[in-house]
């Protein structure tokens, strides 16, 4: 399963990048700077959905005591954090030519930044707590608390934003986008998802091997792979 996702992500990302950067028509208002869309939007979407996946895994882990679910949170959190950072970074780079500024206290940017902090906190819990089981469960609780609060944060930031800032900048997508423009985006999105799946599976394999390092099957497996 792992190589499939690996190859799929490589293929999709290459196709998407080339298509998006070289062949898709440039936006008539923004010119070529618009092309960062092909990295920004997939990463932003993924940043959110990884968080939701982590929360689901947290519930699964806490309710059905599945160790694999905790392992998922452990390995997905750093990836989610990097993707969120990528989304923020590309957003800033995109914002500079489009809005003339690196950063605005826009509702969506602000809540993404907050989400980035929550990711960091979850990673921090894993790093700081020595007992693996405790670390996993506390991080799971943090995930659930984070998800319960996320809509409130979103709403409050949105509301705060409309209060403080007259709508000079609207980050709404162009309502009608040509097919040849969003298709590479879709390819990129799928590519990002399979890249995520690849990374998660790879990291989970390492995690499981580490966790079960005392059992016999791990020893046999590693001997077969000639690591030992």
């Amino acid at each position, binding site marked *: 399963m792992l190589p499939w996702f690996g190859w799929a992500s490589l293929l999709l990302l290459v196709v998407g990048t080339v298509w998006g950067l070289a062949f898709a028509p440039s936006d008539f208002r923004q010119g070529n700077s618009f092309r960062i869309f092909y990295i920004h939007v997939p990463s932003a979407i993924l940043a959110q959905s990884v968080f939701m996946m982590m929360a689901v895994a947290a519930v699964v882990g806490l309710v059905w005591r599945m160790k694999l679910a905790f392992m998922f949170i452990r390995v997905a959190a750093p990836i989610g954090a990097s993707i969120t950072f990528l989304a923020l970074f590309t957003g800033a780079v995109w914002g500079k030519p489009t809005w003339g500024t690196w950063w605005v206290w826009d509702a969506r940017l602000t809540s993404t930044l*907050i*989400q980035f*902090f*929550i990711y*960091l*906190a979850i990673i*921090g*819990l894993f790093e*700081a*707590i*020595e*007992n693996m*089981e*405790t*670390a996993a*469960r*506390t991080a799971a*609780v*943090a995930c*659930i*608390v*984070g998800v*319960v*609060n996320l809509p*409130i*944060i979103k*709403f*409050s*930031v949105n*509301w*705060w934003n409309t*209060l403080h800032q007259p709508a000079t900048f609207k980050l709404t997508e162009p309502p009608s986008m040509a097919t040849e423009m969003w298709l590479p985006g879709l390819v990129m999105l799928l590519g990002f998802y399979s890249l995520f799946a690849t990374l998660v599976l790879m990291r989970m394999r390492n995690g499981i091997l580490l966790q079960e390092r005392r059992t016999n099957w791990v020893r046999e497996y590693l001997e077969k792979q000639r690591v030992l």
Partner: protein
Amino acid sequence: MLAALQTELLLAFRKRSELANPVVFFIIVCALFPLALGSRAELLSPLASGAIWVAALLATLMSLDQMFREDFDQGVLEQMELSAVPFYQQVAAKIFAHWVMTGLPLVLLSPLLALMLFMPAESYPVLLVSLLLGTPVLSLIGAVGASLTVSVRRGSVVLSLLVVPLYIPVLIFGSTAPQMAAEGILPLGQLLWLAAMLVLFATLAPLAAAYALRVNMLGS
């Protein structure tokens, strides 16, 4: 439950020198704003409620690390867990005691600081109500964070990372309500939101904190 509350309040009162720290901190932070921003009344008065809320948030944040630490280290929490009184109720008693010793003094002091920051007179009642509804939420959310990090030595960075994002709605609703009152609008919506969050977290936070404390106990 009542006995636990009594004990916790008594303990909080005995620890008052430690718990005075956040209050002093609160006053100092509020005093720094005019020094950094300039002392003109027309400049400070629109910022007053924001400054007071940021100071209250930071002061609460500072006090969180100690909320469960000592009892955790001394084995008090495990005795609570083993006892016949439901653990979450005892945790709730601790949270309430924490609020009485940190949140409540901040609420009571806030009019004085509002005066020093030239807050418009119309905002005073709203500021008080917003702090009265909001500071318990800070204690409740903070308790979840503190219990998650209770076994982490020097866990304050992780604790802040965890808690600050969750504090943002409280900060937004709390600080904008007095500003709206200054413009002559009754910020009923914000105050209701704060009240709703208070109800939500008053029910959920003790359960979540009790669970997190138990998880930390099991791993120690």
